[in-house]
């Protein structure tokens, strides 16, 4: 087994760029039906939408079909798994959405600032959680010293054409290695779950 992924005791994570070039393989047929060309990512909602594809074989070129994130059964270090070849054509996500994301903003190169005004670095990549329900979970940054850093994606992130603001509650989950970030993301999600469970229903009642 090759080891570009991280896990299994933590969230299994991969850099989005490492998915490029992987074969798309059907579980019911064992066939390689496409190859990942590029990641389709909506920077506005910080969400993974899917992948554009290349043909396999000697005469490879761009495939018109696309692969929605919702149609993926698993992303591993060696392949992207789908149930069957209908995943490339019968997506629940309209093809137009994949080809033309709602938010065209390119997040690459944005400066990332903490909410207290510290410049943490520049976005150089997107980090995906793999498995049955793949999602964008973080950004990879390069700081002033040229070192890599990973920050969790948060719904509270503010983004402009040039900057991304990391909310205060996210800064403690920043890590400088992908393995550590996998554990950090697991803790981050657990915190979010706990926060949502501890909302007092009385807070939502209207006082007479």
């Amino acid at each position, binding site marked *: 087994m090759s080891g570009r992924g991280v896990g299994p005791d933590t969230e299994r994570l991969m850099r989005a760029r490492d998915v490029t070039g992987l074969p798309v393989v059907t579980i019911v047929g064992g066939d390689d039906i496409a190859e990942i060309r590029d990641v389709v990512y909506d920077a506005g909602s910080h969400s993974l939408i899917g992948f554009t594809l290349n043909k396999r074989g000697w005469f490879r070129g761009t495939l018109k079909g696309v692969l929605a994130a919702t149609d993926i059964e698993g992303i591993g270090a060696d*392949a992207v798994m789908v149930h069957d070849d209908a995943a490339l054509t019968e997506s629940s996500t309209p093809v137009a959405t994949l080809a033309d994301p709602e938010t065209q903003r390119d997040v690459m190169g944005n400066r990332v600032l903490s909410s207290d005004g510290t410049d943490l670095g520049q976005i150089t990549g997107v980090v995906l959680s793999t498995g049955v329900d793949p999602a964008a979970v973080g950004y990879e940054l390069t700081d002033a010293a040229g070192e890599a850093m990973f920050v969790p994606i948060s719904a509270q992130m503010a983004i402009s054409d040039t900057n991304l603001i990391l909310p205060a509650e996210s800064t403690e989950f920043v890590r400088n290695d992908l393995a550590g970030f996998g554990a950090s993301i697991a803790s981050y999600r657990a915190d979010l779950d706990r926060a949502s469970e501890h909302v007092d229903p009385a807070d939502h009642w209207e006082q007479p």
Partner: protein
Amino acid sequence: MTTTDPLLMSAAIGRRVIAQDTADEIGEVKAFVVDRSGRTIERLQIAGRTRHARLVDWSDIASFGPDAVMVVAHDRVHEPVDDRDAEIVGGNVDVLGARVLDTAGFEHGTVADFEFDPDSGSIVGVVAGDAHIIRDRIRSLGTWALVVDPD
């Protein structure tokens, strides 16, 4: 038929194939046509002196014996009849040597051997490196890989 111990494909390759009706030696086992589920042997490919690939359906095998494979009649040998035959005979789908890939997208080496039931032609298990993969974990065998459920 009685239940017998599984056989290894690698051990069965090269075994003589003989027609019961004429006692002629048709050839020897060259390869196994395993279906897309990866769980059943559909046909045997027989090596011989002809240029064309020759196959015999599993249902026409009277006995998969320790020294010879007995075919019910000499005229049951035929050329490839479907895409699956062509994929195996043409080398587009590897059986022995197939890449092993789990449904999460991680590779686990290649197939060293298949174990099969010589009575039914059912695949019983797969040997891949140090791992033994039971039949229930097999999902498919295609042009890219033998796909299996994760351990």
